[in-house]
């Protein structure tokens, strides 16, 4: 996890055709197109997983993989451990169907082994038929159909690839907000860049701990170019009776204790950004006032008859105690229930909502997040003094401010480190962190890692000097496991989804599905959940989609129906 400089970005092309690799070599000489070995010869593109795997798992993995969606190879050649399908009519049909999506099978494997590598999935399809799967597998999907007729499709691919590399090379943090390199966050970054400089009201959604307020304070407000202040206001913490005064200000004598005229947050954020956190908790009367402020651009202080214009740009945030999916869905539901005004929701441009994904959906960002958390710990003067005394006690030299450190997540990384100080996190503990669901998201991850580092520095067994002259400070895995167990125990029960499909799967439940393998169990679990949801939704796939994703669009409904059928379920049988 120590920083390294890379002179040239490395690209691995996985395609049964050589033309993409040839084009990249010709048009993008700044890139290193990685070669693979096959039958004793080197080539600039891997035609199968077998050819790609040694590069992906080697010591110089690519920064980006350019992966074709469609291959003309039998599965057993593309994916060596696949069994031949045979020559029956059903097998031929299956082979034909699979041929159109073989890139996804490679992508699945790649994600399991190298989640941090960016993938540019290329297809000629105008509407990628497997878009949902590609998104779930966190790939940047690129369609050649986007190419203008006049220019060649390959040129557009080169520019898209360059953009991905630029985005990956961009700083991982803006202020305290952590971007990471996951496809979802890169997409968010593009969206924020486009929307932040506009004056329109925005809605930021995402589960708790994903960094909504940091995004607004450290990214959106500075990018807006507005000269005024950033003012944050938590709608959940102000009593309903004081909301109007807090938001819009109050005149002297307008209520008991109002001894002087007082401005509200709208006025405090003049020419700046007003961040309204947990907007879904706003009382109905305050919603109406806020709507007027947004629609008319005017506010009225409590006790005043005069309306005055305001110049604050409003950015609202919502998590609505959701455990997954977009908070938009919760707001939408509250709108349907009548507890949140639909006209106010519409005014917040929900279709442009900036959605922060939960940490569990961007696990490829964990290594960098861990490194940055450790950096912040290292940069704290008090911690640095404590580390220095540990280092001295171990017989090492005082670490200089400019000294590098490494957070090694395995013994091998610790041995390979060139840093003077190495924090050593045992591989098993790191594996547990990677598997953890992180219900509290980034905030919880940073807190647990920082606590572990603090325990190692202040209450650990001390530091030791290794053979390479490095000072090792071990992190206690038992403490980390305890912290993770505590985090899991404090995890709130799923709420807000309105779906009781898993209600029967509690401990000891007779309804818990059984299977002979973990994969089978997961499949049965999904089947059971979908069957329960199907019954609850009265067999309506659009309603099922809405409950699952918050969207009842035809596309989502179709995706649900396809998944339903793929799991061997039949709408006719279930009815």
């Amino acid at each position, binding site marked *: 996890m120590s920083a390294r400089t890379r002179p040239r970005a490395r690209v691995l092309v996985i395609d049964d*055709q050589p*033309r993409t690799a040839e084009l990249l070599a010709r048009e993008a000489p700044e890139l290193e197109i990685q070669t693979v070995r096959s039958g004793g010869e080197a080539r600039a593109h891997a035609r199968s997983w077998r050819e790609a795997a040694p590069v992906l798992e080697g010591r110089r993995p690519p920064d980006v993989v350019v992966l074709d*969606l469609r291959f003309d190879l039998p599965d057993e050649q593309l994916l060596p451990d696949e069994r031949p399908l045979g020559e029956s009519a059903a097998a031929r049909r299956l082979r034909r169907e699979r041929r159109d999506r073989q890139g996804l099978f490679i992508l699945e494997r790649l994600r399991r082994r190298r989640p941090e590598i960016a993938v540019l999935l290329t*297809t*000629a*399809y*105008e509407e990628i038929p497997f878009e949902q799967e590609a998104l779930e597998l966190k790939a940047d999907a690129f369609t050649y159909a986007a190419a203008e007729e*006049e220019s060649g499709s390959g*040129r557009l691919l080169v520019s898209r690839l360059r953009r991905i590399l630029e985005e990956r090379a961009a700083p991982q943090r803006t202020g305290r907000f952590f971007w990471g390199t996951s496809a979802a966050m890169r997409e968010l970054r593009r969206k924020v860049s486009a929307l932040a400089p506009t004056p329109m009201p925005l809605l930021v959604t995402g589960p708790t701990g994903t960094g909504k307020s940091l995004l607004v304070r450290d990214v959106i407000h500075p990018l807006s170019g507005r000269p005024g202040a950033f003012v944050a206001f938590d709608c959940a913490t102000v009593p309903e009776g004081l909301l109007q005064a807090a938001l819009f200000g109050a005149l002297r004598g307008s209520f008991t204790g109002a001894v002087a005229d007082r401005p509200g947050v709208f006025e405090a954020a003049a020419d700046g950004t007003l961040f309204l956190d947990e907007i879904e908790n706003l009382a109905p009367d305050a919603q109406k006032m806020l709507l007027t402020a947004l629609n008319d651009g005017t506010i009225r202080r409590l006790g005043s008859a005069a309306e005055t214009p305001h110049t604050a740009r409003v950015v609202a945030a919502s998590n609505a105690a959701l455990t997954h999916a977009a908070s938009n869905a919760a707001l939408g539901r509250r709108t349907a229930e009548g507890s949140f005004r639909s006209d106010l929701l519409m005014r917040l441009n929900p279709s442009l909502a900036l959605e922060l994904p939960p940490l569990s959906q961007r696990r490829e960002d964990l290594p960098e997040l861990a490194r940055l958390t450790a950096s912040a710990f290292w940069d704290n003067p008090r911690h640095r003094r404590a580390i220095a005394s540990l280092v001295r006690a171990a017989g090492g030299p005082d670490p200089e401010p400019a000294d590098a450190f490494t957070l090694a997540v395995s013994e091998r990384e610790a041995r390979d480190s060139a840093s003077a100080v190495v924090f050593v996190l045992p591989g098993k503990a790191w594996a547990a962190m990677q598997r953890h669901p992180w219900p509290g998201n980034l905030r919880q991850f940073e807190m647990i890692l920082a606590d572990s580092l603090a325990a190692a520095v202040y209450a650990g067994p001390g530091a030791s000097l290794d053979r390479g002259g490095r000072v090792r400070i071990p992190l206690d895995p038992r403490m980390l496991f305890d912290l993770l167990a505590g985090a899991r125990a404090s995890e709130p029960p799923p709420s807000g989804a309105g779906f009781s499909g898993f209600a029967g799967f509690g401990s000891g439940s007779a309804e818990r599905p059984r299977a002979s393998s973990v994969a089978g169990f997961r499949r049965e679990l999904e089947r059971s959940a979908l069957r329960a949801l199907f019954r609850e939704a009265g067999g309506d796939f659009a309603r099922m989609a809405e409950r699952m994703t918050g969207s009842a669009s035809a596309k989502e409904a179709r995706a649900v129906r396809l998944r339903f059928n793929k799991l061997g379920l039949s709408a006719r049988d279930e009815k």
Partner: protein
Amino acid sequence: MSQIGDFGLPARPPAPYAWAAMGVSEAAERLRHDLAKAIRFSAPEVPETETEALRERLHADVATTRRDDSGSQSAAEVFDAWRLEEGRHFAGALGRRVDDIASAIEEVRGLTVRLPSLSRPELERLDALTRRVASECRALASEARRDSRR
């Protein structure tokens, strides 16, 4: 299709319309992938002013459209292989669209054979044909997809 007894009943029910339409859409998408994407793969944003550069690009895109260890296939050969495998799915308006592509491909085939000696106007004609083939393939895929949704 095999028959049962003397009643003329098919041994299996015919494939539902949606399935058949999906086959057409997928086949059209395959042509878009294998031919439309490849036939203008290297085309620059601004057409080449150098005649030999244009010839070289057309050679890559039209004469060696797809390549593997066993050799290369020209654009015409890619289309022939696709039509042999998938052409039977297309009838009516979609069939006429395939015929239009076929007629453009026939002209491409003739020019590809003489590629090393084509004049500048002939190279430009071939370039225009690649644009037409790519455009027709895209239109075919869009129409097939629209049909599959009906």
